[in-house]
Each structure stands twice: as structure tokens, then as C-alpha cells.
């Protein structure tokens, strides 16, 4: 056999091996999609920014801006291991019907977890300008949600106006900007029934934030007339307290 023919046969053999490898990869199930749609409530009732409500101490309150970073989303598989997505989401409740869509390996999961804020490893020291402009951590994508390189991103922005007395015009500012690595929190849902992420299918769920729970929860509450403002880029305790309260402000329901 001459050398050219040997080369040709070698080429055909390598091609065949490559094709076999591809077939083996095809055996691995393709991932599925876990989609969390979002809703906002106040005391359990549907809420839209700009609506005037009453807080737990009777103050008329109107939220004008409510945003929160969520990163990462993780699901716990049957082996008890947390599987994390790499996605970062910025929930802006002025935008209707936002969705957080992540890809996970097909399988059965019994818990859902998400980080409220930006994980310390990406919160500081990464220049926002290094992200593409459509990324939630980019200069444009994080507009109004970035402090400085040293203090990182605002994890939760909760802003509006209130009045001391019912019937008065709402002119007093409410402005809670929570952040810093020490204020990063994790929200976990232990599920009664496991759920399945099916290959190439979408598993929808509804994540609801009760905005009233940012001000009152088990063991703590915030009086907006006493503490109406925190910009805790230096990690003051009020911002951390609101982050603690927010941990219990979410509910998750699976949708048909």
C-alpha cells in the first residue's frame, strides 16, 4: 500500500471515530429550562409600583423603585448536591412580567435556592466596563445599582415616599440601598414534593416578593419614620437588617 493510500485510510478512520464520539455525547440528555416568573405583592395583595399602601405602623407609603439582584440560582438534585447556574439577574419591578430563565441538567430536584445580591467573588474588583452592555452587571445594565469598585453593587434598592400621618401628601423620602459582601443573603425553598426539569422542556414557577415584608418580619421591623434612609455602602446595620427581613419575603409556587 502506498503512503498516500495509507493517509487516506487514516483520515477515514479518524472521521469514523469522531462520528462515534459525537454519537456517545448524544446519549447524554440535553438540559432543561427552569423559568421563574415574578410577581409583587403587598401584604399578599397584588402590588404595582406607584400604588399607595399602608405599612405595619399605619404610615401611607408609595414605592417608586424596587430592584434586586439575584445570583446565582441553584437547584438541589437527588444526590443532595446543589447545581448552580451562572446567571445574574436584575429584577426591576417597574417592568411587567419579568422572568428569570436558567438552564439545568435534566433531573429531579427537591430544593430551590437563590442568592439575594451579588456573590462576593464578583461583587467587587471586577470592572463593570468589562461586561457586555446587555449584562446586568455592566455599566449600562447596572445603571443606578453600582456604588464604586470598592463597595460593589447595590443588592436591593427600595425607594419611595411616605407621610407621617394618613391623609397627608407623600413627600418624605424612603430610600434603602442595601449591599456589601456582608449583606449578601441566600433564600432557600425546601420543597414538599420534588420537581423535575425535563430535557429540552421548560419548568415554570412563580416567585413572589411581598414588599411589605421588607419592613416587618419575625423578630425585627423597620419604622420608616425613624429610619427612612440607608445607603449602606459602608455596611451599616440598617441595610443588613432589611436584607435579613427580605430573606423571608419570598414565596415560590410551581405552575402547571
Amino acid at each position: 500500500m502506498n503512503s498516500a493510500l495509507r493517509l487516506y485510510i487514516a483520515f477515514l478512520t479518524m472521521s469514523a471515530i469522531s462520528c462515534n464520539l459525537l454519537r456517545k455525547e448524544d446519549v447524554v440528555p440535553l438540559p432543561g429550562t427552569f423559568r421563574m416568573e415574578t410577581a409583587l405583592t403587598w401584604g399578599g395583595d397584588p402590588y404595582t409600583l406607584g400604588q399607595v399602601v399602608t405599612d405595619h405602623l399605619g404610615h401611607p407609603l408609595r414605592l417608586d423603585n424596587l430592584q434586586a439582584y439575584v445570583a446565582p440560582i441553584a437547584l438541589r438534585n437527588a444526590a443532595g448536591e446543589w447545581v448552580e447556574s451562572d446567571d445574574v439577574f436584575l429584577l426591576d419591578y417597574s417592568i411587567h412580567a419579568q422572568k428569570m430563565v436558567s438552564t439545568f441538567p435534566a433531573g429531579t430536584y427537591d430544593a430551590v435556592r437563590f442568592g439575594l445580591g451579588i456573590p462576593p467573588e464578583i461583587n467587587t474588583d471586577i470592572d463593570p466596563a468589562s461586561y457586555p452592555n446587555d449584562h446586568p452587571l455592566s455599566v449600562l445594565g447596572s445603571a443606578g445599582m453600582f456604588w464604586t469598585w470598592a463597595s460593589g453593587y447595590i443588592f436591593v434598592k427600595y425607594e419611595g415616599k411616605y407621610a407621617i400621618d394618613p391623609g397627608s401628601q407623600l413627600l418624605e423620602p424612603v430610600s434603602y440601598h442595601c449591599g456589601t459582601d456582608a449583606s449578601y443573603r441566600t433564600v432557600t425553598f425546601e420543597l414538599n414534593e420534588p420537581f423535575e426539569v425535563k430535557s429540552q422542556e421548560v419548568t415554570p414557577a412563580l416567585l413572589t416578593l411581598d414588599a411589605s415584608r421588607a419592613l416587618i418580619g419575625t423578630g425585627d421591623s423597620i419604622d420608616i419614620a425613624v429610619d427612612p434612609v440607608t445607603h449602606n455602602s459602608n455596611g451599616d446595620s440598617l441595610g443588613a437588617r432589611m436584607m435579613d427581613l427580605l430573606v423571608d419575603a419570598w414565596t415560590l409556587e410551581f405552575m402547571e
Partner: protein
Amino acid sequence: MKHWPVHSIVLIWAVMFTTGCDRCSEPICETADCNPAATPYELEIPPFFPPMDIPEDNPLTEEGIELGRMLFWEKSLSADYSMSCGSCHLPAASFADPNPYSTGITGAQGIRNAMAIINIGWAPSYFWDGRAVTLEEQILEPVSHPDEMALPWEDAVARLQSSDVYPDLFEVAFTDRVITPELVAKAIAQFLRTMVSADSKFDQWRRGETNLTDQEFAGYEIFLREGGDPETTPGGQFGGDCFHCHGEAGLQFSDYLFRNNGLDSTFTADPGHAAVTGNPLDSGRFKTPTLRNVALTAPYMHDGRFETLEEVVAHYNSGGVPSATVDPFMKYTTGGLALSPVQQAQLIAFLHTLTDTTFIHAQQFQDPH
């Protein structure tokens, strides 16, 4: 017939494979609007700046940019041949208007100060109220606006079409001799995207090329600190609160959001962003302008009410006036920022470090006619 030797087939296949890959990786044209005759222009993104999103249907080309410059300064785009875009965007004022309101060819005045043209390729919206979401869309407005250049677009393109120069330039830039308003806007947008300022003293300092004076650096620290007395404002650092809206992320010095900075308590004269969104919560909100070259862009605010930076800083120091939509950053309920006169002077000294005179004198931005 003689058979081709196997090694020749393998060789031919290999050559075809290799050349084919090269063609795939370096396409000449990726979009329908790409013009293979024009020379691609690669915009240099300055250090610390984010990427600039350039529309796929309007890539930068040397010919398109130069055409855009000619059109920007073209007075035949106004009804009486007296005004160009540059008439209200003067280089000495960092391509803004030194008058509170610009005066159109009929003598009519607008209701807002002409915004500075500087690094606007990064902006996600245009005009004080954000009514245009692309640069191309923004550019279409002033030519035909009755209070500005007052020339219907059909007349504008007819003038350009009948000129001895423009059809050839459009053909080279866009492979089309038929001039349209959209192509005019595309050319001007290309030019404006190249108007990048990144050589202020602050930029040089960030690049390690110079030092700020003690006064400038003290002003920078005030700029970056939270406002307010920590006794009354949790997190307060006796700072200027400036960075919240004019943050240095990406060295833009604007968050490009819409805010009510406490100038007025009612907004019937100019509802601002609410006129675009229809949302009452946007009343009195206007786009945060960049602070780059702010020392050159007087007068200040959307209506040009302040003539000096001293007046601007004094306004923020006062806390502004309350209203239903005033931004919570404004310290109107706690008596303002309480910056001392020395601190205000330091802050202004810092703002002067954002001045980039090479930008306003750059030959490639001047009137070519």
C-alpha cells in the same frame, strides 16, 4: 481516463477546507447594509470605558464618518441656509449651546438647553426626556422641527440630492446615490459616535499620567462620599452624593437614568420624562447628563437656569425643593448636604478635572466646509 491519485484528492480537500475556514472566520460583510466599498473604521475604546454598541445596520466607516461630519455642519439642512447642527452644538461649549435655550431660524426658542455632544455613543437614550432611543432616531428631529432648522425632510434630501458633492459621497459611504433622511441620520450618527472624550486631567490621572492637586483630590473624595450627617442619615458621610447619578463606572459620569433633582415642585411647564412614558411618577424627571466637560457646558440643568457651577453645587447643597417625584437622593428633608464653602470649592475643582480641551479642539470634529 486516467484516475486522480488519492494523495491529490486529499491535498485538494485540505486546501479547500483551509481556505473555506478562512473565509468563514473573516467575512467581508455580515449584514445586508454592509458596504464592501467603504473602509471599515475601528473605534478605539478608551481605557476603563465599556464597549460601545454600534448598530449592525450602521457600521462605522471612514467615508460614512466624514460624510456625517459634513452633514453635521451643513447649513443647507436648515430652511434659510443659516443653521447647521453645529450652530447649537458649539465646540467651545463641548458641543452644547451656551444659551439657555437654542434659537431656531424663525427666532423661536425651544424649552430646553441643547445637550452636550460628548461620548454620546454610549447613551441608551437621547434628549432630556429620553424620547429617542437611538442616535439615528434623535438626529431626524431637529432638521424638520419648526422651532429649529424648520426644513421638511423631503426638501432637505432634495437639496442634498441636487448638490455636486453629496450623491457621490453617499454612494461611497452607503452604495446608494439616492439620499434619504435615514441615510443622512446614519452618516451623522457615525460621526457623533466617534466624538469620544477620554483625555481630561481625570482620565490622565486614572491612567497614572498625572496627579490631582490636593484640592482636586479632596473634591473627588466629596464626589464619592454619601451625603448627609450620619446622625440623621444612616450611612451619611458628609459627602456630595454625586456618584449615585454621575458615577464613574465606565468613566461615563452619568447613569443615563431620569431623575427629578428637586428644581421645582410642579411640572406643568415641562413634565420631562412623563411626557414620554405617560407615567405621573416620571413628572419632573430628566436624563442625568454626563459631567464630562461640565465646566464648559454652562448654563446648567434642562432649562439652563444656572449659569455657574457654583450655583449648581449650591442647589444640591440646599437639598432642593420637595415634590411628589423628587429623587430620594436629594436631602430636602434634612437641610441639604451641608457642604462648607471650602468643600464646595473642592468639589468644583474636581469637576474642572473632567475638562478635555483636546476633545473640543480636535480637528476631526470641526466644520469642514
